[in-house]
Structures are given as structure tokens and as C-alpha cells.
């Protein structure tokens, strides 16, 4: 399968490797966040539901990181990429690393990321990178269920009681500013779009907005106003939360390097 991928060398500024990390890290970090819910979810059924999503996301991250390591060609495998990089080497959306907060926060964060991943995985079906295309096709099916789960919950919360509506609105207003980063077009994005490897970041915005508007309408929630500030997790500039998340995720490999079980 990897034979079909465009060669890493000629004309690659490292953007391709970096892009694989962006996709992998958003899934990995969000999966780690959802894993924190285990033992704390409001109901046994929700706990299993969120844990299932977490495992799907970590599975996506594994495939992407393994491929990224192969693409890089420096002998780093998925475990080394996941467990031995520092926060500024992570390329996830800053949205993915935001704390779980209350259940409304967890649900809103999930809806916003799920809708983005749906658009992304759809667009990647047209990638010239066959390996990436295959990972996206597998992930697309999982993400369709994630979005169904999270959007149904947002509708229930938004169109629920006065308390649940207020919490959903608060979570939406709190997390909304982090969504701009998804569509922020960098030089590397343009390079990959020109080479036919990835969709341009900005091209995902229309589809994402349509999906989110649909869910918010049903949830009787208003679209929050845009804010000018842009986060840059995809360039390694993160909020203070990522360091703590990685400290917990990586502690075993950091304490006992090379440990296996």
C-alpha cells in the first residue's frame, strides 16, 4: 500500500509528514481526553459509548503515526512518535486538548471535531496518497457514528431543560474560538493541496459550517460570533492544557524508557 504513496524525497518540504502528524495528533489527544471520562461518566452506557469513541480515535492515531514514521524514514515508530515527543512537537488542534469540563463541554468539543473530521476524511478520498486515502476511508465510517452520537447529545442538551441549554450554550461559547484554527490556511496546506495530497484547510469550512448550523438549529442554540484570535496547534503552539495531558499519557515511557507489556 505504501508503494503507491508519493515519494517522500523529491520536493517534499516535510509538509507531508507534518500533515500526517496533524491528523494523528488531533485523534490521539482527543482519544486521550475521552479516556479520562472512564470511571466518571454520568451513566454506564455513556461511559462505554465515550470509551468506544476514544478507542476509535486512538486506532486512527496509531495508523496515521505508523505511516508518518514510515514516511519520515528515520526509524521512529508509532509508539516513539506518540510517547516521546514534547508538547511543542504535537500538531493537534488546540480544541482537542481542551479539558472535558462538564458533560456539555465534552459533547460540544466532540461535535465540533467530529464534523471537521467528517469533512476531512471525505475530502481525503480524493488524495493522491493511497495509504492516507485508505486510512481516511476506514476512519470515515467510525467518525460517522461519532458525529451521530455527539450531535444527538447536543440536540438533547440544547433542546432540553433550562439548565442543560445554559450549559450547552456556555460550552459552545467557550470552545467556539478554537474552531477557527481548523480552516486557517498555511503555506504547507497550500503546498499539499497543489500536490493533490490533502484538501486545503479552508476548503473544509463550508461543509463543516453547514453541518454545525444544522445541529445548532435543532438544538435551539445560536451560532456564536466569530473572534479574530487564531490558535495555532497545527504549528505546535498550544494551550497550557496539552503539557499536563501528555505528562499523564507519556509518564510510563518517560519513566521506564522502552518498557513493553
Amino acid at each position, binding site marked *: 500500500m505504501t508503494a503507491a504513496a508519493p515519494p517522500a524525497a523529491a520536493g517534499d518540504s516535510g509538509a507531508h509528514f507534518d500533515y500526517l502528524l496533524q491528523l494523528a495528533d488531533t485523534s490521539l489527544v482527543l482519544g486521550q481526553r475521552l479516556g479520562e471520562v472512564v470511571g466518571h461518566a*454520568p*451513566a454506564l*452506557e455513556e461511559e*462505554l*459509548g465515550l470509551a*468506544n469513541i476514544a478507542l476509535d480515535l486512538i486506532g486512527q492515531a496509531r495508523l496515521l503515526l505508523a505511516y508518518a514514521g514510515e514516511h519520515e524514514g528515520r526509524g521512529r515508530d508509532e509508539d516513539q512518535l506518540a510517547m516521546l515527543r514534547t508538547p511543542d512537537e504535537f500538531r493537534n488542534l488546540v480544541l482537542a486538548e481542551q479539558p472535558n469540563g462538564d458533560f456539555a463541554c465534552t459533547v460540544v468539543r466532540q461535535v465540533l471535531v467530529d464534523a471537521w473530521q467528517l469533512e476531512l476524511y471525505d475530502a481525503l478520498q480524493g488524495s493522491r496518497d493511497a495509504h492516507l486515502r485508505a486510512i481516511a476511508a476506514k476512519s470515515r465510517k467510525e467518525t460517522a457514528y461519532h458525529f451521530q452520537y455527539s450531535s*444527538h447529545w447536543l440536540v*438533547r442538551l440544547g433542546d432540553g431543560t433550562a439548565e442543560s441549554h445554559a450549559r450547552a450554550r456556555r460550552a459552545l461559547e467557550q470552545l467556539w474560538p478554537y474552531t477557527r484554527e481548523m480552516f486557517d490556511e498555511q503555506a504547507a496546506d497550500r503546498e499539499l493541496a497543489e500536490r493533490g495530497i490533502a484538501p486545503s484547510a479552508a476548503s473544509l469550512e463550508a461543509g463543516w459550517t453547514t453541518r454545525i448550523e444544522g445541529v445548532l438549529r435543532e438544538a435551539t442554540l445560536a451560532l456564536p460570533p466569530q473572534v479574530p484570535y487564531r490558535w495555532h496547534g497545527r504549528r505546535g503552539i498550544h494551550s497550557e492544557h496539552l503539557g499536563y495531558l501528555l505528562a499523564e499519557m507519556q509518564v510510563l515511557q518517560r519513566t521506564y524508557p522502552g518498557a513493553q507489556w
Partner: protein
Amino acid sequence: MAATPDWPLYEIFIRARGGLDHKHVGSVHATDAAMALEHARDVYTRRQEGISIWVVRSTDIVASDPGDAAALFEPARDKIYRHPTFYDIPPEVKTL
């Protein structure tokens, strides 16, 4: 984890493969039928147990009273002629 939420109980039935019947596998709590389907998917099909799910509100199931078991089921006990065991099965019939 909080105590079980104040949500109604749904009974879950899963069809393991095409051609088989839906079988009762357990129950989940959910606020409505759509959520019950999602919960059933997450709780009972994690290991590819099924291809179709039915959910039914537990309160919608009408059950026989175990106290009536004697009247309901015991009269059948001595009616062995209702079992098709007195027929000679032709050798051509492989399964019956």
C-alpha cells in the same frame, strides 16, 4: 460514576446474522428509543455480535406470571403426542 440515572429501561434484541431471529441480550437505560439504539450498539455490539438491533421499552413488555406456571405449562407435560416423535422419518429427509 453516578448512580444509575433516572432514565427508563429498554430491553435489547440483537440479530447475530442474516436469517437468524433477534435474541434478547440485555437492557440499557436511555431517555428515548434513539438513545437506546446507540447505547445498545455501544454496549452489546462491541465484538461484532450483530447486524440489527431492536429496542423495546421494558414497561411495554407484558410477561406471564410465574405463579401461573402450573396452569399455563404443566398441562402440556403429558401430551407427548404433540411432539412429532411417532412418525417414521423417510431416509431422504436429512433434518427435521
